[in-house]
């Protein structure tokens, strides 16, 4: 980390030192003298050239303002709402500060929902990482140019179809009398019924988020120079050792980026639990959804919605501490 900062500083320092823009009061002699307006704009652009931060701020400020207003403001509203309550008789919002919503989060029902959601997100993330690595490896380091394009299209293709359509496709596959059951029946295992269960959700989540894991791992693997892998073999490492000691550590930022997608997307999703979930399939997402809709308890929904945010912050801090972004 420290290195990168140093390098940045050096670049910045170098740029300001070697700046060839004329200073104020010393216009370039070979240029025809510009009018007042011209000189003013030249001055502004010179000032901008010298002050990198100023340039960055001016360029970034419109999107930054947008981000602040839309994103942070709505988050803030949610945070505030979480400290309000709903009158159980009139169903009206009561604007009095209370910690009751958060206290309720720490009761058994909700703790087990939170725990189940985290466990599902973790299992889906690991599953996707395991599935994505060989695919990404093949795409990045073995396939020909053409094969790579085909595979990349194949990986991204599902993202063009509607999310709902893909989940329904899985329902058709997994439900009682579905394709999977029919297949197992044919090969003599007997009918299976895993539709509407946590297993079904695990399969559907893993399938739906897989492209989000493959793409960053592919990008990380593709950046690794061949010579590093050859150097490892040259120094006596067999293939598996090279994968373990060189390839995987260098692909780690890709895994980290992919896992942020799969983990957070699973944490917040409410459609798949609604459509594929069974008896024990209450997740943070669909409980929030139920509290907004059926139960009409917006404050509690807001309190519950803060949970995934806190979990993701912990997740990112943990990944950073583990060095997952070091070579990014």
């Amino acid at each position, binding site marked *: 980390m420290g*290195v990168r900062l140093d390098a940045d500083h050096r670049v910045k320092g170098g740029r300001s030192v070697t700046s060839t823009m004329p200073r104020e009061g010393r216009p370039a002699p070979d240029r025809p003298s510009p009018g007042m307006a011209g000189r003013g704009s030249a001055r502004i652009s010179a000032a901008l050239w010298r002050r990198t931060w100023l340039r960055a701020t001016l360029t970034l400020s419109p999107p930054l303002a947008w981000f602040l207003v839309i994103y942070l403001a709505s988050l803030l509203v949610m945070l505030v709402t979480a400290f309000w309550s709903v009158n159980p008789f009139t169903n009206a919002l009561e604007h009095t500060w209370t910690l009751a919503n958060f206290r309720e989060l720490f009761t058994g029902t909700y703790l087990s929902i939170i725990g189940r959601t985290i466990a599902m997100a973790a299992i889906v993330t690991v599953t996707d990482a395991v599935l994505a690595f060989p695919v990404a490896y093949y795409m990045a380091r073995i396939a020909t140019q053409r094969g790579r394009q085909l595979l990349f299209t194949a990986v991204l293709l599902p993202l063009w179809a509607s999310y709902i359509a893909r989940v329904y496709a899985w329902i058709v596959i997994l439900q009682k009398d579905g394709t999977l059951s029919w297949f197992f029946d044919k090969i003599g295992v007997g009918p299976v019924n895993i539709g509407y269960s946590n297993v079904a959700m695990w399969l559907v989540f893993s399938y739906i988020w897989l492209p989000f894991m493959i793409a960053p791992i592919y990008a990380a693997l593709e950046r690794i*120079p061949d010579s590093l892998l050859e150097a490892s073999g040259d120094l006596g490492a067999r293939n598996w050792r090279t994968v373990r*000691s060189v390839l995987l550590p260098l692909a780690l930022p890709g895994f980290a980026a992919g896992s942020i997608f799969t983990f957070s997307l699973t944490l917040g999703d409410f459609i798949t639990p609604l459509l594929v979930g069974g008896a024990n399939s209450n997740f943070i997402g669909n409980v929030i959804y139920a509290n907004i809709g059926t139960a009409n308890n917006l404050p509690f929904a807001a309190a519950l919605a803060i949970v995934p945010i806190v979990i993701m912050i912990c997740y990112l801090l943990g990944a950073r501490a583990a060095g997952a972004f070091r070579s990014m």
Partner: protein
Amino acid sequence: MGMQNQGPAGRGTTAWRQDRVPAVRLAGLRKSFGQLAAVDGVDLEVPQGEFFTMLGPSGSGKTTMLRLIAGFEQPDSGVIELAGADVTRKPPYSRDVNTVFQDYALFPHMSVLENVEYGLRVRRVPRAERRSRANAALEIVRLPGLGGRKPVQLSGGQRQRVALARAIVNEPEVLLLDEPLGALDAKLRQEMQLELKRIQREVGITFIYVTHDQEEALTMSDRLAVFDRGQIEQLGTPVQVYEQPATDFVAGFIGISNVLERGGRRFTIRPEKICLLADGEQPPTGSHIEQGRIDDVIYLGSATRYQLTLSGGGQLTAVRQNTQDAVAGTLGAAGQTIGVAWREDQAYEIAGRRRGAAASADDLAPAGQRPVRHEGRERG
């Protein structure tokens, strides 16, 4: 420095082989990429402890040669032997060879020390020994105390040294270096040339060094092979290759050379061996004398270069040192005619282009001027 004796697998026991078994033996080596023959039938022997250079223009197959020896490429045909053992079909990790890559290929996620220790760790060398050998290697390349840094924190020259330490710490039979100084600036390059020679002497490992820089090849090598289009044009010591180029190609690639045809025979002669005769000056005995018209005079500082057209036909470049009694410009300006002389024994007969006229090269050359490119084979 006794690098070889530090490990338990030191090569003391195999010392008896040093005269007999070459470190590297290549026989009939061929490798094509599609239609293109990158390595086109190479026979070569490199004795143990030699600083051997492969010199050739870009695209002449030098890198492919190294990759074949290291095991990154499989030859279409031919044999590769390391210290007498056939390794042609062995993977890189079971060959006793290490490579210094042109881009250094240091592992960015490991510290300098971890990089240097990598080969030993893979081979399960105990931790304490690993440490001491890695530190010894860092000392040899003059980088002690930098073990904790990451490669990004090093300068180009320092990375170069780490790459070298990472290779020599394994005490390989042969060290392969692919244009290792190519990425360095001129001053650092000269410094590293001397360093590499010193390190090679200290560790006693056979070096196979690839470069396209003829000056580098001449100053560093014990012997060198000049490559062109996947074949060895000439093999010999720097003196042999420079003074007695075997072919047009070698003559042209190494230094400025003059190729003249007299009486159906083709000769080459180096510019500094040509004697330009001022008025009334006598040539050394045994000289061949002709008249030449000066086309151009180029002042180089310590020497002056003359471009001449000879009365007997052909162009000639001559270089005259600007010593006290031969001041620049005293021989006359462009357009004048002067005497040109060279000693018969310093004009070397060459074959035509080697390809297509391979057999004739030895037949044409008189005894004592035989092209030296078969030397390697005769040794074996």
